[in-house]
């Protein structure tokens, strides 16, 4: 539901980074989004098109890399990917897990830009 403000934050951060490469065109923006981050990819994509219009990011592609929830089990000592968000239990031994090692990320991983060759 708050994807629009998330997208606006991404556009600001990427514009700031891209400013270090004058004249460069942003081709792709890659995100890492945990399964527990409360954002929906479809909604991000929808907001993306509207938000980048008229900015240096216009025409760029948003790539969302979704990360599963990984928990550390105190009972068996192993890390494992949760099979679903309906049950926070260790996939190896079935005991309840609280120590999450991955799944809440909401990050800009990298951007891909086309740099203009310096005019001599």
């Amino acid at each position, binding site marked *: 539901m708050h994807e629009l403000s998330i997208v606006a934050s991404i556009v600001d951060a990427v514009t700031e980074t891209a400013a270090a490469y004058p004249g*460069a065109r942003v081709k792709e923006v890659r995100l890492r989004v945990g399964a527990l981050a409360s954002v929906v990819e479809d909604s991000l994509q929808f907001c993306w098109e509207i938000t980048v219009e008229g900015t240096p990011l216009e025409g760029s592609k948003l790539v969302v890399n979704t990360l599963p929830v990984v928990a550390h089990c105190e009972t068996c000592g192993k890390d494992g990917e949760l099979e679903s968000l309906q049950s926070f239990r260790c996939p190896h031994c079935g005991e309840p897990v609280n120590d999450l090692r991955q799944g809440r990320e909401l990050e800009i991983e990298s951007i891909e830009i086309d740099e203009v060759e310096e005019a001599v």
Partner: protein
Amino acid sequence: MTTRIVELRRGILKKNDELAAGLRRRFGDAGVLVLNLVSSPGTGKTAFLEITLRELRARGAKVAALVGDLETDNDARRLAASGAPVRQINTHGICHLDAEMIGKHLAGWDGVTSGDDASLAGLEYLFIENVGNLVCPSSYDLGEKIRVALLSVTEGEDKPLKYPTLFNSADAAVITKMDIAEPCGFDRELALRNINEIRPGIRIFETSAKTGVGMQEWLEYLAEARA
């Protein structure tokens, strides 16, 4: 034309996270226990908070509340009847509170000059009633020590399963409206099991703002959390 990959590795909500970390330090230094109450609209956050503020004040505790809503100051007026200082935050359409809104509304608290920790000094408990929403508030750290997820007996026992992101991020769970659990056909065992499935071992309080049931346990929990 050359293609280049620029690594950012930057949190999208970095600004909020930094502000929240600052608030958390400020709250810690001032010795105030801050709780963030999150639920669907209509769960009874305000009624639960009314009785909490009243009971804490009756015990001589220094309490205050910030209450978030899209529009109106109705909730602030209800809560202020307890005698505690209360401030309304109107988000005008935004579906959650964020750390910046909290920071702004702390300025000048109690009439003391704005911006410094003196404005929080002497306060023991600060309750933040979030906007009624079980989705977006889960992403926004407000600098609280305890996030409380509330659920009423009329909402369905599977609410935690439907909204795992929020329930998994909670430190305590409160079931409200226990006085009408029976006529609602509320399956208590199932609700407790579902909450535990999403957030194993979480403290759960079964309460009613109408009869006061469960409040004693809740107030003891608050006192322990402050100690």
